[in-house]
């Protein structure tokens, strides 16, 4: 039992070492003057998926995004759960079909609720 936890411990050590090692190597190479250091504004700007950065991360967002994000997460998770059910549909049979319908129905109640409470309106 404890040996198996030990294996998980090795994984933890490896997971820590993996991101730390490149940073240490970079610092080491810099200190030994092997790595050239020629910074310019474009080079030291923040990389953001190839898009030019706008402001900093502390900017304020419209609080309404959170409801949209919440609904998005809800229904994307629904889709994720339905996918394995759809793959194994033939083996699972009627019982799983009823369960899936119930699952979708419960989320549908949430959708109707959000709709009627004007959570989807963008004022």
């Amino acid at each position, binding site marked *: *039992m*404890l040996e198996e*936890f030990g294996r998980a411990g090795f994984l933890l050590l490896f997971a820590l070492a993996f991101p730390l090692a490149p940073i240490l190597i970079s610092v080491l190479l810099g200190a030994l003057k092997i790595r050239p250091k020629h910074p310019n504004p474009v080079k030291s700007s923040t990389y953001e998926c190839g898009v030019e950065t706008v402001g900093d991360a502390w900017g304020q967002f419209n609080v309404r995004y959170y409801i949209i994000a919440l609904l998005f997460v809800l229904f994307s998770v629904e889709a994720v759960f339905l996918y394995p059910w759809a793959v194994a549909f033939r083996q699972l049979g009627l*019982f799983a079909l009823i369960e899936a319908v119930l699952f979708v129905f*419960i989320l549908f*109640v949430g959708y*109707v*609720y959000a709709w*009627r*409470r004007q959570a989807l309106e963008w004022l």
Partner: protein
Amino acid sequence: MLEDLDRIGPVLILMVSAGGILLVDLALHERDRRWLPFGALAGLAAAAIWTVVLILRGREAVVFSGTYSLDSFSIFFNFLFLGVAGLVVLASADHVRRLRYQGEFWTLLLLATTGMMLLAGARDLILIFVALELTSISQYVLAGFLKDDRSSEAGLKYIILGAIASAVILYGMAFLFGISGTTKLVAPEGQASIFALIAQGESGTRAALFAAMVMLGAGFSFKVALVPFQMWVPDVYEAAATPVAAFLSVGSKAAGFAVLLRIFYEGFGPDSFIGSDWSNLFAAFAVVSMTVGNVMALLQTNIKRMLGYSSIAQAGNIAIGVAAIAASGGGVSLGASGVTFFLATYVFTNLGAFFAVIVISQRLGSDAIAGYAGMGRRAPLLAAALAICLVSLTGIPPTAGFVAKLYIFNAAVQSDLVWLVIVGVLNTAVSAYYYLRIVSHMYVSPAPDEGDIVPSPWLAAALLTTSVGVVAIGLVPFPLIKAAERAASALG
């Protein structure tokens, strides 16, 4: 599988009525919303009737491959939680009518009750956690439901501290699963349970088991408000709407202790090799909770904060019963039935006190204890109802609180925990000061201004039920004691 569905029928009914109220509320006009509490009451009544039918047909069994147990313990708590929710619906009908989101309030109340009923019957760590989150998340939202500054702050405090407690519980559960490889507390036929695997486990498991026990104990102590996990109690009780505070004070405490009995008494067992460890853990919780709760309650000038600290002290009293279970060294113990019985009396007593506070605070516009002066003349019946509950909280006959305290102290004495009883009795003396101070304030001090205080019919019905209950249990405790003993016998 499907033929077992009727055994969780009461839970399903509550879930469906919660969803139904949410949808119906969307279609209703503003003035028709006053019918919603009747919908909530109808759902609770239907669940109670279903439970009675289950008893009559003798459907008690462990179902869903050992996940849920319909036994006398879960049936006892089904009735207890349905009763709590019913009384809270009566007490909050007036309050909710002033709110913007009415359907949501009733839905959350019913969902929290659903989670509590599942908790009392859960025999599997996963179901325990899911039911716990259903209850807790509903209660977080209810605590912040007023949406003013203080209520929001209380809700946020509750959710952050509660989430940490849930994480600690989950970590403890992960340890248990890591040791035993199963999530079942008790084995169904031919399968292994946590306890069976622990009993035959290797020597290295004791440390991990001890860590799991401490984490589960700490996490659930947060839910039942035992010191040192009580920080949220006074703030949340003070800032949340009073009916919500009433619901939190009895509902989450009863559910928390029910699941503690399930995990520690039924799962770990009193005569296992860690039995004395968890007995000592809860004895320590009991001593610090009673002492800190009572001493802090002495200093309060706000009655809701005072009731908050008093509920911490009462949680300490109940923890005496939990400690007594395992301290008996494997013999028959009154501890489990003591906890069950104490919770039932505590429901009536504490709800009654909160309901009287709802009526009086509504009129006075503040929760200051000073405002209760002369209440005996201004509102004789209301003052009497509050006085009965405060006397019962102190533990003076002929009220339910006296019988409950006697029973639980007796259980401790029989388990050789005399020192714990001495601490408990000393604390009762301290608590008498702040409980009876309010009683004397109501009857002796002159009233600053006259004017009757009349509760609404809803609240009057709720107050009448609790006051009659407190006195009736105090005078004729045996039927309820029998029921509690039967409930506890399902665990041992």
